[in-house]
């Protein structure tokens, strides 16, 4: 088991007029090899939660275990934790600073105290993973396109070779093509490099296709924590907290309601297509 979160509470600006309970008794387990979709309305506490995973925020109360070790225990090595649990912030391209793309991506590994050759190798590998070609290495990170910037920023975290990759809304503000590219690359990291992924999003469509488990947050609490089909079956409740199931869920449900005897648990277009085709062949 990679990460275990126990009774986590977090309060912003405690004991002031701006006091805000952002996490309320959160209990989550993330296993090695999981692809978790962390979903919730804006302000539901997703970003706050993921900043706890690598120790950037310290819980008001509760505990987090990484590979069985409590990260709040005396003398815990946060620097090491941060290279094991890679966190890509929302709009990560706003944190680029290097004079060249290569230099920027190399920042993470060079903080890990590696040799120059290793830094070089990891940087190349990370840039390759996100599909940035070698002819761009020496360009400024400020003169490439928005989607490329974001991929460079993600490479900056990948270069540290984390075991768990946490991405906070990696598709925010991208066009559909850029969004699909990023999601496909994340899925590749999961399948080919066997990375544990936590993908934060407020769109069910984004995660339905990839996640093996979906965690729904609302008002700082975990509302659902189950496999996608099971979560989407609560689509009425999801709507109440400002979310929606993927469009196919509604289509399948609508078909069922007007009398077609089909299984409504499809979450992606492919599954829906298969189910509808099999229904047609069944009735013929």
């Amino acid at each position, binding site marked *: 088991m990679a990460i275990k979160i126990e009774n986590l509470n977090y309060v912003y600006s405690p004991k002031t*007029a701006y006091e805000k309970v952002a996490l309320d008794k959160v209990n989550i387990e993330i296993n090695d090899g999981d692809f978790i979709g962390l979903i919730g309305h804006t302000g539901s506490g997703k970003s706050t939660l993921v900043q706890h995973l690598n120790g950037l925020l310290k819980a008001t109360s509760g505990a987090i275990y990484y590979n069985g070790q409590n990260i709040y225990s005396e003398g815990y090595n946060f*620097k090491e934790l941060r290279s094991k649990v890679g966190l890509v912030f929302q709009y990560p391209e*706003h944190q*680029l*600073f290097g004079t060249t793309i290569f230099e920027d991506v190399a920042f993470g590994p060079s903080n890990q105290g590696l040799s120059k050759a290793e830094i070089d190798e990891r940087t190349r590998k990370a840039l390759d993973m996100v599909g940035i070609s070698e002819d761009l290495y020496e360009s400024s990170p400020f003169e490439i396109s928005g989607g490329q910037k974001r991929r460079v920023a993600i490479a*900056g*975290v990948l270069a540290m070779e984390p075991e768990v990759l946490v991405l906070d809304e990696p598709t925010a503000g991208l066009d559909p093509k850029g969004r699909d590219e990023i999601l496909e690359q994340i899925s590749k990291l999961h399948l080919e490099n066997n990375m544990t992924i936590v993908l934060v999003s407020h769109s069910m469509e984004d995660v339905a296709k990839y996640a093996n488990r979906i965690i729904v947050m609302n008002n700082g609490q975990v509302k659902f924590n189950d496999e996608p089909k099971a979560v989407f079956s609560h689509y009425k409740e999801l709507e109440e907290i400002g979310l929606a199931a993927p469009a196919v869920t509604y289509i399948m449900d609508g078909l069922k309601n007007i009398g077609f005897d089909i299984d409504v648990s499809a979450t992606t277009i492919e599954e829906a297509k298969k189910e509808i085709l099999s229904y047609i062949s069944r009735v013929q």
Partner: protein
Amino acid sequence: MIRDITIGQYYPAKSILHSLDPRVKLVGTFLYIISLFIVKHYTAYVLVTIFLLSAITLSKVPLKFIVKGLKQILILLIFTVGFNLFLTKGDPVVEFGFLTITDQGIITALKMGFRLIFLIIGSSLMTYTTTPNQLTDGLENLLAPLNKIKIPVHEIAMMMSIALRFIPILVEETDKIMKAQMARGADFESGNIIQRAKSLIPILVPLFVSAFRRANDLAMAMEARCYRGGKGRTKMKPLKYDKRDMITYFVMITFFILIISTRILF
């Protein structure tokens, strides 16, 4: 973290002080500060204390908050009191070695200490109860006569309110960038001076880029809404004096006269 920095912080509450016209509070604070320079006799100190305590009560800002503001000037306070205590000439009360405390010293030290505390509490009470935007609005209005001598009062006020508006945004941005670089293993605490200065580059570059981007966006948004400077610009919420504002002016002037009279009478 860095977010806890307070710069003239506003404390949201519904109180009489909050609802006063910012001009009244500005003029009132000004009179109050001048009167602090006039106080000399004990009765004046008592008067100021009573006045300040009633203002604090009326403001509904918790005492804890106000005391917290004093912490920032603690060192200044200690120095002021210390210097006055030891360096004032008079009849010695206690002597340790070369340091002597005189009766005059105790009195001056106490008076200076109280004045400083009164000054900080009084002026922070204004910023606690007035939003930065109200403050600049009030200032612009009060300083409007300076337009006659070609001082661009509106532009200065606009710059001030934009700057004030940007402080929390930039603080938040700095917080975010610092965290993002820490997630990449950045370390801002260890190393010698040169290493530490170098470790600031990954924060400062993105911060500058972001500040320019935001400034650009803001300028664009203002132009899109036909902003052309102060000339002929009307306000959605023009400042208007209420009955309670007049009463407050009256109270402030009475207070000021009382303080002056303690100086003349005693």
